């Protein structure tokens, strides 16, 4: 189960940020997106995940194969760690949360309300959600924010296990993930040329 992006142009707030982006993500592989702030990494990920339509170009992927994890973890503070995970497992039609709990070492926290977790623990819970979805294509936006070195290693192990199981991952990040096998895609060269305002736009300027 892969992902094919061809000649994609994307816009944020009506302004084109990246154009002509093409890449293919095959089963068992990971791509790490890199680029300066504001270049459009998040927009690219949201477009690939189907949250917003591209300006032009195509994303060829089965929408039912993709799971997206953004800057926020979607954790409900008043639900316990286990309740949070069970909810997402049920939404995606699964029941097992124990593997995910073990992968991110959340065993001691399962009965705690998620609101009482530290930032790093919340992020681990958010990443554990990926495992309970059982979906093959992970689209991750800055997954290691607020994680310590051990937790980053935990995350790298989880991604590696996912790739071994035939999954794939598209990750935007600024830091070293400890995943030397991942292909790095610099999005800088795809930066969109400033649009020339045509007469119609000028009427509104």
């Amino acid at each position, binding site marked *: 189960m892969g992902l094919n992006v061809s000649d994609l142009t994307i816009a944020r707030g009506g302004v084109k940020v990246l154009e002509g982006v093409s890449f293919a993500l095959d089963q068992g592989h990971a791509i790490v997106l890199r680029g300066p702030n504001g270049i459009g990494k998040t927009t690219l990920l*949201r477009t690939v995940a189907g949250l917003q339509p591209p300006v032009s170009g195509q994303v060829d992927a089965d929408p039912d194969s*993709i799971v997206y*994890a953004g800057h*926020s973890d*979607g954790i*409900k*503070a*008043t639900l316990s760690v286990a309740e949070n995970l069970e*909810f997402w497992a*049920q939404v995606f039609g699964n029941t097992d949360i124990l593997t995910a709990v073990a992968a991110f070492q959340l065993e001691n926290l399962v009965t705690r309300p998620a609101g009482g977790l530290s930032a790093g623990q919340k992020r681990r819970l958010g990443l554990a959600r990926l495992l309970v979805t059982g979906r093959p294509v992970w689209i991750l936006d800055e997954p290691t924010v607020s994680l310590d070195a051990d937790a980053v290693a935990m995350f790298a192990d989880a991604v590696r296990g996912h790739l071994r199981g035939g999954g794939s991952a598209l990750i935007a990040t600024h830091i070293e993930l400890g995943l030397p096998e991942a292909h790095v895609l610099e999005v800088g060269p795809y930066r969109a040329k400033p649009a020339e305002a045509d007469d119609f736009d000028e009427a509104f300027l």
Partner: protein
Amino acid sequence: MIALLIRDLRLAMRAGGGFGLGLAFFLIVVTLVPFAVGPQSDLLARIASGILWLGALLSCLLSLDRILALDWEDGSLDLLATAPLPMEAIVTIKALAHWLTTGLPLVLAAPVFGLLLSLPAPGYMPLIVSLLLGTPALSVIGTFGAALTVGLKRGGLLLSLLVLPLYVPILIFGAEMARRGVDGLDYTTPLLMLAGITCGTIALLPFASAAGLKVNLR
């Protein structure tokens, strides 16, 4: 879908969930009215059905911005949008959860509050039936308004302005039905109109809400 409903209900019950918010507001309105208009029970009996409908509508309005805004803030909405549930199902479940936590308690509390306003005995049945028919439409329309304003900070004012005109027909027919019941008149026509509005909104608005939400998630 059931999981989402259970989660929303559970969240509403937990601390800060706002389960009692609408009910408490309803109680406040109903207890303050006799102080404001004076304790003449014949006057209260005349306006009771209208006050109860107005109170129910306003308490419903009070909790609308919570329907989607909380899920938007913590990112759950993005994650739900990429989940296997269709957006139409998500907004329908959200509306159902809102009705179960706000509308239904109001319907159940209305007879008790009717006593406070000395609602005449023949008025109880039509009042409850009209609220039971009308409040689901309030939740569905409210979810539509919430879907349109979900990305806005402090979108509550805009939400109220958008939703209130759409609430007017429900208020007219609902209160009319309850008033006719009190007066011992035939209330079939407002009953049918109210039922028709509710069925129409439940059938059509989830699609509009889903479309609005998709635009706001971009």
